C-alpha cells in the first residue's frame, strides 16, 4: 500500500465543499445586521475539501493505527480487553444519542433508568452502597473520590485531616489527584514485592491523615495480603480507604473492594467493563462509596421515586458538581450492555481467567526475562528486563522489537521500583493461541538479544515511521498546522 503522509489542510483547495445545506428561507438577513466589531476579522483557515477527500484521508489515517481489533495489546495497567460490537451499536441508538440533557424528566425516563440500573449493578459488584457515574475518567474519579473524603472530614469538623497516604509504587495520577484536591501527599514505602510496608505505615497514622489511596492487587500485580490489617489500622486512626480501580479486573467475580474495607473507589469503565479506549478517551470513572459517604457524592444524582419513575436531584450536602451533566453517558451504555451480557453467571469468570492468562505468560517467559518477584500474580506482572543483562538490550528495545512482530508493547518503565520494568497484562479475552504466539515472539527476541543484539536495538524496522526525534519535538514545539507551515516556509 502506498505510504500516506498528507495533513487534511494539505488537501485543501479554495472553494471546495464537503457539505450541503438547505436553502435559507428565513428572509431576514439578521446575521448581516450584527455589529461588525463583534465579528472576527479574518476567516479561520479551515480545510476546504470534498466528502471523498475526508473519507479517504481518515481511512488512511486509521490504517496507521494499532487497536485491540488489530492485534494483541498486553499493556500493563490498561486492561485492553476486546470491545464487543453489539455495545457499539446499542450505544448509538438514536433514542439515546438524540436526547438533550435538559429535556423534561418525563421524556428521558429510559436514560435515567439505565443510569440507575448501572449504578446499582456497580454498587453490587463492588460491595459498596452507591455510585455516581458522573466522573469522566479514572483520574477524574480519583479527584471526585478524594473530594468525598475531604467533604466527609470537613462535615465532621475534622479540618486538620489534610494528608493522604500514597504508596511510592502508585500510579502517577494518585499523587496528582491528591494535589488537585488540596491534599498533601505522604508516601508510604513498599516492600520488595510491592506490598505496603505495614510497619512503615503505622507511624504515619495520626489525626492529620484523611485516608490512604491504594490499589489491590498492587502495581506489581500482587495481592496485598495484609489488606484487612491495613484497613483496620487506617479506620482506627479515623482515616478512610480509597481504592484505585485501575487493577479491579482480576477481582471481578472473586473479591469485592467493599468487603476488603474500602470506603471509596473509582472504576475505569474503559478497563474493567470493556468500553473502548478511543485512542485516549472518552472514558468513564464512576465513584462508589459506603453508606455514610453517599450524601457527599457529586450533583446531579439520579433517584428512583416510589412510583418507579426516575428523577434528577441535587443534594445540599453533596460536595458540589464536577461535570456539566451526568457524565459520559455514551460510555455508560456500553458498560451496561457488557454487564448484562456477562450476567451474574459469567462475571464470575472474568477475574479468574484474566489471572490465569497472566500467570501463563509469566511462567512461560521467566527463564528468559527477569522476574523480580516470584509467586502467583493476578491480572498482570512485571519483568525487570531481559534475564541476561550482558546483552545491553533494554526494555525499550524489546518493546520496539515487539512492534516489528505485530504486537503492541507492554507498559514500560513503570512501576518505578525497577530500572527495566516491563508490565504485561493480557486480559481474559485473549485465547491461548494468541498468548502462545506472544510467548514465542518474546522467546525469539530474547534469543536475538543474545545472538544478534543489533537487530533488537535497531527496532522497529517494519513500522511506518521509526525512531522519532522526541527531544527535537519538545525543544521546538510545533503544535499547529499554521505554525508548521510558517516554519517550513522559512526553512
Amino acid at each position, binding site marked *: 500500500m502506498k505510504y500516506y503522509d498528507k495533513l487534511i489542510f494539505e488537501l485543501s483547495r479554495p472553494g471546495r465543499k464537503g457539505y450541503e445545506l438547505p436553502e435559507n428561507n428565513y428572509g431576514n438577513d439578521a446575521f448581516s445586521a450584527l455589529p461588525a466589531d463583534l465579528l472576527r476579522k479574518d476567516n479561520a483557515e479551515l480545510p476546504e475539501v470534498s466528502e471523498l477527500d475526508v473519507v479517504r484521508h481518515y481511512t488512511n489515517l486509521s490504517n496507521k493505527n494499532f487497536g485491540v*481489533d488489530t492485534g494483541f495489546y498486553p499493556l500493563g495497567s490498561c486492561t485492553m480487553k476486546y470491545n464487543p460490537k453489539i455495545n457499539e451499536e446499542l450505544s448509538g441508538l438514536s433514542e439515546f444519542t438524540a436526547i438533550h440533557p435538559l429535556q423534561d424528566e418525563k421524556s428521558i425516563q429510559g436514560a435515567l433508568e439505565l443510569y440507575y440500573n448501572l449504578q446499582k449493578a456497580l454498587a453490587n459488584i463492588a460491595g459498596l452502597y452507591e455510585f455516581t457515574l458522573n466522573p469522566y475518567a479514572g483520574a477524574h474519579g480519583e479527584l471526585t473520590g478524594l473530594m468525598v473524603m475531604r467533604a466527609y472530614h470537613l462535615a465532621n469538623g475534622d479540618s486538620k485531616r489534610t494528608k493522604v497516604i500514597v504508596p511510592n509504587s502508585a500510579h502517577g495520577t494518585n499523587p496528582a489527584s491528591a494535589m488537585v484536591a488540596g491534599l498533601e501527599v505522604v508516601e508510604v514505602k513498599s516492600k520488595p514485592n510491592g506490598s505496603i510496608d505495614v510497619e512503615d505505615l503505622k507511624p504515619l497514622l495520626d489525626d492529620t491523615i484523611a485516608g490512604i489511596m491504594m490499589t489491590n492487587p498492587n502495581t506489581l500485580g500482587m495481592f496485598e495480603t495484609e489488606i484487612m490489617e491495613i484497613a483496620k489500622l487506617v479506620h482506627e486512626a479515623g482515616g478512610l480507604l480509597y481504592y484505585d480501580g485501575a487493577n479491579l479486573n482480576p477481582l471481578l467475580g472473586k473479591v*469485592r473492594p467493599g468487603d476488603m474495607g474500602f470506603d471509596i473507589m473509582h472504576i475505569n469503565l474503559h478497563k474493567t467493563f470493556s468500553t473502548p479506549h478511543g485512542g485516549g478517551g472518552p472514558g468513564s470513572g464512576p465513584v462508589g462509596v459506603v453508606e455514610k459517604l453517599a450524601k457527599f457524592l457529586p450533583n446531579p444524582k439520579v433517584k428512583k421515586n416510589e412510583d418507579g419513575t426516575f428523577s434528577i436531584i441535587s443534594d445540599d450536602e453533596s460536595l458540589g458538581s464536577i461535570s456539566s451533566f451526568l457524565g459520559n453517558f455514551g460510555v455508560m451504555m456500553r458498560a451496561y450492555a457488557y454487564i448484562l451480557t456477562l450476567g451474574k453467571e459469567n462475571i464470575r469468570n472474568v477475574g479468574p481467567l484474566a489471572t490465569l492468562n497472566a500467570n501463563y505468560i509469566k511462567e512461560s517467559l521467566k527463564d528468559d526475562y527477569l522476574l523480580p518477584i516470584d509467586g502467583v500474580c493476578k491480572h498482570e506482572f512485571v519483568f525487570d528486563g531481559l534475564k541476561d543483562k550482558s546483552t545491553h538490550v533494554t526494555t525499550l528495545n524489546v518493546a520496539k522489537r515487539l512492534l516489528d512482530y505485530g504486537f503492541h508493547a507492554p507498559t514500560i518503565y513503570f512501576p518505578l521500583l525497577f530500572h527495566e520494568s516491563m508490565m504485561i497484562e493480557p486480559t481474559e479475552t485473549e485465547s491461548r493461541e494468541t498468548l502462545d504466539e506472544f510467548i514465542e515472539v518474546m522467546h525469539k527476541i530474547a534469543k536475538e538479544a543474545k545472538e544478534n543484539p543489533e537487530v533488537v536495538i535497531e527496532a522497529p524496522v517494519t513500522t511506518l515511521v521509526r525512531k522519532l526525534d522526541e527531544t527535537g519535538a*519538545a525543544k521546538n514545539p510545533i503544535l499547529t498546522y499554521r505554525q508548521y507551515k510558517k516554519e517550513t516556509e522559512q526553512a
Partner: protein
Amino acid sequence: MPHTEEDIQAMLERIGVNSIDELYSDVPQEVIFKEEYDIPSSMSEIELRKHFEDLGKKNRKLTVFAGGGVYDHYSPSTVAHLLQRSEFYTAYTPYQPEISQGTLQYIFEYQSIISELTGMEATNASMYDGATSTAEAVFMMVASAKKKNRVLLSDTLPERVINVVRTYSKYHGVEITVIAEKNGVTDFEAIKNELEKGDVAGVVVATPNKYGIIEDYSGYADEIHSKKGLFCIYADPSALAVLKTPAEWGADIACGDGQSLGMPLNFGGPYLGFISCVKGMLRKMPGRVVGVTKDADGKRAFVLTLQAREQHIRREKATSNICSNQSLMALYATIYVALMGKQGMKEINVRACDGAHYLYDALIATGKFQPAFPGEPFLKEFVVKTDMNIEELNKRLLENGIMGGLDLGDGRLQFAVTEKRTKEEIDNLISLIIA
C-alpha cells in the same frame, strides 16, 4: 472469553497449579465473594437488543428549541461513519508513536483547528468537558500568577460552568469571586474595582454568554493585564467561526465545550472540553499535546510532546491530574470541521443566526413575549420575557414532540435555533404557542 476446558487444564499445568482457585490462595478467605451477584442473568444479543430498545422507548426524541450550552447542530453522516473505524476507537493512548500515527495526526489536526477558531497559538489534545476545562484554566491562571490566588468569574458564564469551577476551587484552595451581571452582560466596572485590590490572578468571561448575548469585551485585556492578571474567555467553538475570537479580544486563554462542533446531544456526554492559550503559557497548560517531528529516515511524524508537565512524570508537582483526553470526540470535531470547512462553518452560523432572529421576531410579534435584554446582539440563542405560564406551555409543546425554551425563572424563557431548524418547524412552534 475464548478458553476451552482443555485450554484451561493445559495452562494450569504450565503454571504448575491444580486449579484457578489456587491462583487466589494468597487472598484471605474472608474477602472471597461467595454469594450470588444481584445483577440479571446473562443476556444473549437478541435479549440485550430488546432490553435497550425497551429502554429507548421510554425516551422521547424531540424537535429541540433549547440550548443552554448543548446545541442540536446537524452532523453529516460521514462523521459517525468514520468514527466507527475500530483502528481508531479500540486504540489506547498513543504512547507507541510508531503504531499510533493515525491518532497522533488527528489530534494534531484537532489542535490546529481549535487554534484557528480561537486564534490562539497552542491547544491541547482536549479535556473532559467545557466546565472542567474552565476549572483547569482557572488553575492555570493561579499557577502563572505570583502569589495571587483569586479569580473573577463573570456571572454571565453558564451556571454549570461556574458550579464546577467552584467545586474544583473549593478543594484546591483557590478563591472565586462571581461578578454579578448587569442587564444580562458582564459588569466591567465591578471587575475594575476588584482588580484594584491587587490580588486577582485572572478573569473569566463568556462569548456568547449564557443568555446567548455577544458581549463587547473592548478594554478588558488592557485593564486586566495592567493589573498583572490573566484574561480567559469561555467560548462556543462553533460560533468562533464568525465571532470575534478570544485572541482578538486579547485573551491569554480560551476554553469551552466542543459539543457545538456537530456532536450528538448524547444526553450530556461524551463531548469534549478544549483549552487554548498564547505561546507564553504553553508550559502551564494541562493535558496532552501532540507536536510535529521527524523519524530516523526524515519522514514527518507526530509525537506526544512536552510530557514533562504531566502527572505521570511530575506526580504531585503536576499542574493537573488529567491523564487522558476525549480523543475520539476530538476526532469527531476534526472530521466535522473538515467536512463543513471554511465556508460551511460560517454558513451554519449565518443560518442559525437568521433562524434564531426569525423565531425571536415571530415571538415578539405574537404580543405575548417581550425582549429580556433589548438591543443586545445575539447569534443563535436568546431570552424573552412572558406572562404566560411557562410550565404549561412547555408541557403542551412536549406533547407535540417539541422541546421548548429553557425556563430561567421570573417569566424568562431561553430559546436556541440551529441550522437544523426549518422555517416550517419554527412556524409550527409559533402556532402551538399562540393556540
